[in-house]
């Protein structure tokens, strides 16, 4: 309903409050925004929606605004060219006052935004807010999630460092597995057959124009529908959603037990958004910006690229999948996932909203959250991957060498030089692909260790042809010392019997030191 501000009876003083009012009236006469804004601000919402559980959507939008503001400021300096992007990020980090903080705000804002969007989605799902008449709001939300993840990925690429380069390589190889059109898709994504100058320009356009433009339009439509359809009423067990009656029930609830949206429910949104912004600022201040890591040069092989936090779970899944499962999984699973998300409001558009009576929904969210957490944790530690620099970088803990014999010391050298440590950690440093060896001597006898080194077994390759006899003996001598002081090394009972029968004068007395029965010792 368009309205025009009434004329003022009082003659305004030039430059005083009256002038402001006249300016306001001049604009309002033309824009006529006051009415709709007031309607939106004061429309009644059910009292139960003024809850701290209903603040995540507004927080996500606040973060989007933060990303836009910080993104625009970053774009003033960032150079989207393969040759200069990396340097321009270092200029931002080190040469422009507070440039590092701006990057940190944008980076942490991105992480917070993905997290808040996921929490918002889980909350909406558990509260049944996707049911009639809010199906389209949910569907737009699903696309908003995808676009948020798209922003996170393209943003990671714009931080053109080693992680970005290899992350992009993995993204391109995933695309290349699409049947028939894979090659064309890679060409489209990279702007050519390889990651080059055109690639960064494309991702810049995606990250700065295409996705944010769509994201903003979708987000505004999403909010528009929230305003028009009303905030989801608090789910009560037994209060079922029916298409025929829901709107009438909701309106009655909003008007009979309602409060105006502003300030009734809105102050909690404001407070939470403020807290989230503060949290982003604190993280940015304390933890700083993300990267850039090393230069994006494929000739640099001393690198262990990892995706950003929210894609670590995919990295883990791809690492653990058997090779024949990779293509079906990476091409089909996402489509099924998105299809399920889009189908949910149509499949369960009516009925119970409360999580108290939707055990499957609660279980589904819990399972996904637990899988996400576990896969992310595994992605952080990458136990499947050898730790390629351990052999030359991580010292043997001094306590393991304090009483070492010359041969044991040489065994430790062999252990390092032959890169056993790439897969086996000791002292908490080294790879996790094989078991940690800090107490290996309590688990395996000398003969078992020697056999394992020579012949391999399980995941362990055979090293018999790569090590000399002396190296093997030195190595197992070292390994045999790896046991806690109060726990003797494992010892073969039959070997003990043979040793005892050989040393007849002392038959029956157990050897003081099992090692003393070995050939290298007198």
């Amino acid at each position, binding site marked *: 309903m368009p309205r025009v501000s009434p004329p003022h009876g009082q003659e305004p003083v030039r430059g005083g409050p009256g002038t402001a009012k006249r300016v306001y009236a001049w604009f309002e006469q033309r824009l006529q925004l006051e009415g709709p804004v007031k309607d939106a601000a004061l429309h009644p919402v059910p009292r139960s929606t003024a809850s701290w559980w209903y603040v995540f959507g507004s927080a996500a939008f606040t973060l989007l605004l933060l990303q836009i503001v910080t993104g625009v400021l970053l774009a003033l300096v960032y150079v989207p060219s393969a040759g200069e992007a990396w340097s321009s990020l*270092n200029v931002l*980090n*080190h040469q422009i*006052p*507070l440039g*590092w*903080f701006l990057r*940190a705000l944008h980076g942490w804002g991105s992480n917070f935004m993905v997290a808040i969007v996921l929490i918002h989605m889980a909350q909406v799902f558990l509260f049944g807010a996707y049911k009639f008449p809010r199906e389209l709001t949910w569907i737009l939300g699903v696309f908003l999630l995808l676009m948020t993840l798209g922003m996170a990925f393209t943003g990671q690429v714009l931080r053109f460092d080693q992680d970005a380069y290899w992350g992009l390589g993995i993204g391109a190889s995933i695309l290349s597995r699409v049947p028939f059109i894979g090659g064309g898709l890679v060409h489209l994504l990279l702007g050519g057959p390889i990651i080059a100058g055109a690639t960064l320009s494309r991702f810049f356009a995606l990250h700065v124009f295409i996705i944010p433009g769509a994201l903003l339009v979708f987000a505004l439509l999403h909010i528009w529908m929230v305003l028009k359809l009303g905030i989801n009423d608090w789910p009560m067990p037994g209060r079922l959603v029916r298409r025929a009656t829901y709107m009438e029930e909701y309106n009655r609830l909003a008007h009979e037990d309602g409060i105006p949206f502003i300030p009734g429910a809105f102050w909690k949104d404001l407070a939470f958004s403020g807290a989230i912004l503060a949290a982003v600022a604190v993280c*940015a*201040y*304390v*933890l*700083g*910006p993300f990267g*850039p*890591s*090393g*230069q994006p*040069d494929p000739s*640099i092989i*001393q690198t262990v690229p990892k995706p950003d936090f929210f894609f670590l779970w995919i990295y883990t899944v791809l690492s653990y999948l058997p090779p024949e499962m990779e293509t079906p999984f990476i091409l089909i699973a996402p489509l099924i996932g998105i299809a399920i998300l889009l189908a949910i409001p149509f499949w369960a558009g009516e009925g119970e909203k409360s999580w108290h009576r939707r055990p499957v929904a609660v279980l589904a969210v819990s399972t996904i959250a637990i899988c996400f957490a576990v896969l992310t944790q595994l992605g952080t530690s990458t136990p499947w991957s050898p730790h390629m620099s*351990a*052999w*030359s*970088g*991580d*010292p*043997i803990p*001094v306590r393991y*060498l304090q009483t070492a*014999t*010359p*041969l044991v*010391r*040489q*065994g*430790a*050298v*062999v252990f*390092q*030089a*032959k890169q056993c*440590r790439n897969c086996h950690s000791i002292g908490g440093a080294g790879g996790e692909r094989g078991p940690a060896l800090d107490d290996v001597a309590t688990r395996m006898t000398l*003969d078992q260790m*020697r056999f394992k080194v*020579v012949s391999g077994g399980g995941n362990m390759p055979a090293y018999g042809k790569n090590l*000399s*006899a*002396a*190296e*093997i*003996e*030195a190595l197992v001598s070292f390994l045999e010392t790896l046991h806690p002081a109060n726990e003797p090394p494992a010892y073969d009972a039959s070997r003990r019997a043979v040793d005892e029968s050989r040393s007849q004068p002392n038959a029956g007395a157990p050897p003081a030191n099992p*090692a*003393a029965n*070995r*050939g*290298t*010792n*007198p």
Partner: protein
Amino acid sequence: MRFTASALLACGAALLGGCGHTPGYPPNPILRPTAVTDFATLYSQNCAACHGANGQNGPSIDLANPEYQALVDDATLRKWISGGMPGTEMPAFAESQGGMLTDAQVNALIAGMRRQWSRPDAFGGTAPPAYAQTAVGDPHRGEASYEAHCAICHAATHEQGHEQVTSPMYLALVGDQALRTIMIAGRPDIGQPDWRHDGPGGKAGVPLSTQDVDDIGTYLASLRTMGQQVTTGTSSAQAKSAAPAGR
């Protein structure tokens, strides 16, 4: 109120930009691996695993021993780092030899070791035996010298008998030069005395002469050769049981 706001603003500005101790301030740009010439970084990435975190207490020789630093000249150090040390597990690190370090990085390692671990007059005015063996020693005389100077700790009959260094298994993994270097410079980090103190109780007695070191080196090398004759073509277990025979 206005004062509080200004104070907050000032604090904020100081926290974010004013001081250099901001926790989130990013580290310096990451250099290309071949451009790193910082000694601490190069040492910790390439050497620390075998030679110990601070040049000592590792399984291999302690580079932080000032006597070692005084004994070995730059050209020799460069040769070992670049091309590896024959007869030992020390690999070649120079790009030209299949490693990952540039010549500048090898030089940075040498300069860093000198700066950090060299000490003037490390030998206290006494001239040590020559670093490299130039004459062939006498293994029989060497055995006698070994018994006189080394066997107190490294004797086969010692209750800590496994301290012995005469095992062909051990000798197969340690080159002549590495043994000689330890005889001369010692390994203070694990209590191995230098050439002046090799003897009963590690007391300064008659220092080992160049001749003694040559002889002991030749004696130990002869044990290695005997061990190799025994172990060639045998399985490791057989080699193991044959080891005492090699002595």
